[in-house]
C-alpha cells in the first residue's frame, strides 16, 4: 500500500498557515494528528476506496468530447483532442462528495458526533448532508441567504437528506458569510463537532486534507489518459473558486512538468468592472478564513464582496496551494465572465448532451483560448483534459432565464 506522506507544516511557499482564534488551535492539532494516524492505515484506505467505488461510483469515466472540440476549433488546428473527467457522474452530481465522504469518515473515527459545513452552490452542502445521512450523523449547513434563493433545488435536497440548512443574513449573504458563520459555530461547539470544509482553503490542515481527498480526480485522470491515448495530456483545465476540484485535478499532474495546468476563475461582469470573483487574477495577498493566500480586499484590508453568476465560485478567497502554484508559475490562472460561462454551458449541452454546472462552464469557456496558447508553444494541436466538476441541474433556473 502506498504510504500517506506526512502532512507538512501547512505552508505552500509563503501561503497557508493557521490564522484562527486560539480556541480552534487544539481542534486543528487534533485533526492534523488524526489525519496522520488514521488516513495512513490500510483500514481507512480500504473503507474510503470501497465507499468511492460502491457508493460514489468511482472511477468516473473519461469522455472524449469530439463534437465540442470541433465546435470550438472546426479545423483542428489548435485543439487535437478534448477529454472530460466526468465528476458530474459522481453520486450527488459533483466532485464535492469525494471530500465530504472522506472527512465524515475521518470525523466518525475521531469520535465527533455532529457535522457542520458551509456551502455556496449547495453541492458541498448536499455532499456533506449525504455523507451524514449515510453515517447517521446530524448535519447543519450554513448557506448565504442569496445562495439559498438562487440554488433552491439544493436546499430542498439537503432538507430531504435530513440536514438543517441555516440561511446566513450577514454581509453579502454568500459563501464568505456562510463560512464566517460556520467558524462561529465551530468555535462554540468544537469539542463535539467536526467542521467539514468543502474547499481546499481554511487553516492547516484543511487545504491539504481536502486536496488529498480530491486528488483521486487527478490520479484517475492521469491513469485514464495514459490508457486511452498512451500519453499524458498537454494541459489540464479546471474552474477555481476556492479551488478544490482544480487542486484535485492538478495533483495528478503537478510532477509532470510537460503538462500545463490552467485554473479558470470567475470574472463576473468583467474583472475591470470590479464585480467579479477572480481572486488570483486581480486580488492581493492577505489572510481570510484561516490562511494566507490571495484575497479580494481593498487597500485597507477589508474583504470585498465577490460576484459571480455561479454561487460555487462566488468567493473572495482561494486555497493557498493555488497561490503558490500561481507565483511559482507552475499553473496559469485566467478568468471567464458570466456571459462567457453561460455561452459555454449552452455549447457543451448542445454538442455533447451534457449540461455542466455554471462553475464548470467557466472552464469550458476558456478551452479555445487555452488550446491556442498551448498549440502555439508546442507547434502542434494540443490535447486537453477538462475537469467536468459538476452537473448543471442545480442551475436550471438561471440557465432557463438566461439561455431560453
Amino acid at each position, binding site marked *: 500500500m502506498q504510504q500517506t506522506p506526512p502532512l507538512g507544516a501547512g505552508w505552500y511557499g509563503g501561503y497557508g498557515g493557521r490564522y484562527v482564534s*486560539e480556541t480552534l*488551535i487544539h481542534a486543528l492539532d487534533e485533526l492534523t494528528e488524526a489525519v496522520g494516524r488514521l488516513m495512513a492505515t490500510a483500514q481507512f484506505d480500504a473503507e474510503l476506496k470501497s465507499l468511492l467505488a460502491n457508493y460514489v461510483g468511482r472511477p468516473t469515466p473519461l469522455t472524449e468530447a469530439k463534437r465540442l472540440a470541433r465546435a470550438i476549433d472546426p479545423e483542428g488546428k489548435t485543439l487535437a483532442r478534448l477529454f472530460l473527467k466526468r465528476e458530474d457522474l459522481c453520486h450527488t452530481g459533483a466532485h464535492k462528495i469525494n471530500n465530504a465522504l472522506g472527512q465524515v469518515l475521518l470525523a466518525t473515527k475521531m469520535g465527533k458526533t455532529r457535522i457542520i459545513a458551509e456551502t455556496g452552490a449547495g453541492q458541498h452542502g448536499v455532499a456533506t448532508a449525504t455523507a451524514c445521512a449515510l453515517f447517521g450523523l446530524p448535519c447543519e449547513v450554513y448557506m448565504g441567504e442569496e445562495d439559498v434563493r438562487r440554488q433552491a433545488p439544493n436546499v430542498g435536497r439537503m432538507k430531504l437528506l435530513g440536514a438543517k440548512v441555516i440561511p446566513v443574513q450577514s454581509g453579502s449573504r454568500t459563501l464568505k458569510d456562510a463560512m464566517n458563520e460556520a467558524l462561529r459555530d465551530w468555535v462554540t461547539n468544537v469539542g463535539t463537532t467536526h467542521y467539514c470544509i468543502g474547499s481546499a482553503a481554511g487553516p492547516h490542515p484543511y487545504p491539504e486534507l481536502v486536496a488529498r481527498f480530491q486528488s483521486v480526480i487527478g490520479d484517475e485522470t492521469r491513469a485514464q489518459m495514459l490508457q486511452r491515448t498512451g500519453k499524458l495530456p498537454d494541459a489540464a483545465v479546471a474552474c477555481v473558486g476556492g479551488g478544490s476540484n482544480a487542486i484535485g485535478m492538478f495533483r495528478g499532474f503537478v510532477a509532470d512538468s510537460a503538462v500545463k495546468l490552467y485554473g479558470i476563475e470567475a470574472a463576473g461582469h468583467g474583472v475591470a468592472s470590479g464585480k467579479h470573483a477572480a481572486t488570483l487574477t486581480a486580488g492581493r495577498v492577505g*489572510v*481570510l478564513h484561516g490562511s494566507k493566500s490571495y484575497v479580494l480586499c481593498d487597500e*485597507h*484590508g477589508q474583504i470585498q464582496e465577490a460576484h459571480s453568476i455561479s454561487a460555487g465560485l462566488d468567493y473572495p478567497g482561494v486555497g493557498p496551494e493555488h497561490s503558490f502554484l500561481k507565483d511559482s508559475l507552475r499553473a496559469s490562472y485566467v478568468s471567464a465572465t458570466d456571459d462567457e460561462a453561460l455561452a459555454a454551458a449552452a455549447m457543451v449541452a448542445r454538442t455533447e448532451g451534457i449540461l455542466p454546472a455554471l462553475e464548470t462552464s467557466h472552464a469550458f469557456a476558456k478551452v479555445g483560448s487555452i488550446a491556442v496558447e498551448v498549440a502555439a508553444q508546442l507547434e502542434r494541436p494540443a490535447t486537453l483534459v477538462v475537469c467536468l466538476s459538476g452537473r448543471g441541474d442545480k442551475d436550471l433556473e438561471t440557465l432557463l432565464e438566461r439561455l431560453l
Partner: protein
Amino acid sequence: MGRIDDVLAKRAKGEAPGGAGTKALVTYLCCGDPDEAGSVDLAVACAEAGADVLELGMPFSDPTADGPAIARASQRALRNGGGLDATLRVARAVRARCSTPIVLFGYYNPLFVRGEEKLVALAADAGVDAFLVVDLPIDESMSLRTLAAARGLAVIPLVAPTSRPDRITKIAEVAKSFPVPFVYYVSMMGVTGGAGATDVLAEAGKQAARVREVTSRPTVVGFGIDSARAAKVAAADADGVVVGSAIVRRIEEGTSPEARASAVRAIVKELRDAL
C-alpha cells in the same frame, strides 16, 4: 517597563487612578461606531470612569470571533469610513487627552495588508501600546512581535479553555524575550457577546490564575462578562476582566452623544466599583 505594565502594577496594589480596587478593567469599543469623534469621546469617558486599559477595536468586514453586537458595530463603523486609519486617528486623539494605555484590537488582514513594519511605526506614533490580533495565534505572530518590540510595543497573547499546557508554556517562553504586559484568557468557547454562566466565569478566573503562574504575567478574563456581577466573579481569581459587547450595546442603544457617553460612563463605573 511599558505603560501597561505600570498601570497593571499600580492597579494590583490598588493605587491606580479611578478607584481603589485591585483588579484591572480593560474596556473595548469599536472605533468609528457611531463615528470617529464619538469614539474618541467614548474612549476618554471609559478612561475617566475607571478603565485601566483601552482596547480600541478596528472594525473588520469579517469578524469571525465576534458575536452579533460587535459584528453590527463593525458594520456601522465601516459604513462610516472606519478601518485601520480611522482607528489610528482615534488612538492619537485619545492619547492627546489621557495617558491610559491603548491596545489596538482587531483582525490580521488590515494589519498585514498595511505591512507589519509600517503598521508598527504608525501605531507607535499614534501612542498605541500594544496589539491584540484575534486571528494571529502565537505561532504566526513572531514577525509582528519582533517588529513591535523594537518600538517598545507588545502583542497580547490569548489563551482559550482548549489551549493545551504546551501552548501556555510557549507563551511563557515568548514572554521571556518579548513584551507581554498581560495575557488574555478567553472564558468560554464561542464568540464575543454571550452571557457567561457564573460557574463558567469562576472557573475561567481559576484557569487564568494558572496561566499567570506559568507565564508570570497578569492574566485577565474576557468573553461573556456583561455585568458588574459577572466581572466580580471572573476577577475573583484572575487579575482583571475585559468588557466589550456590554459597552458596545450601550453605544448602540444611545440616541445622542450625551446619552451614549452617560450610559458608557455608568457601566464602566459600575464595573470599576465591582473590581
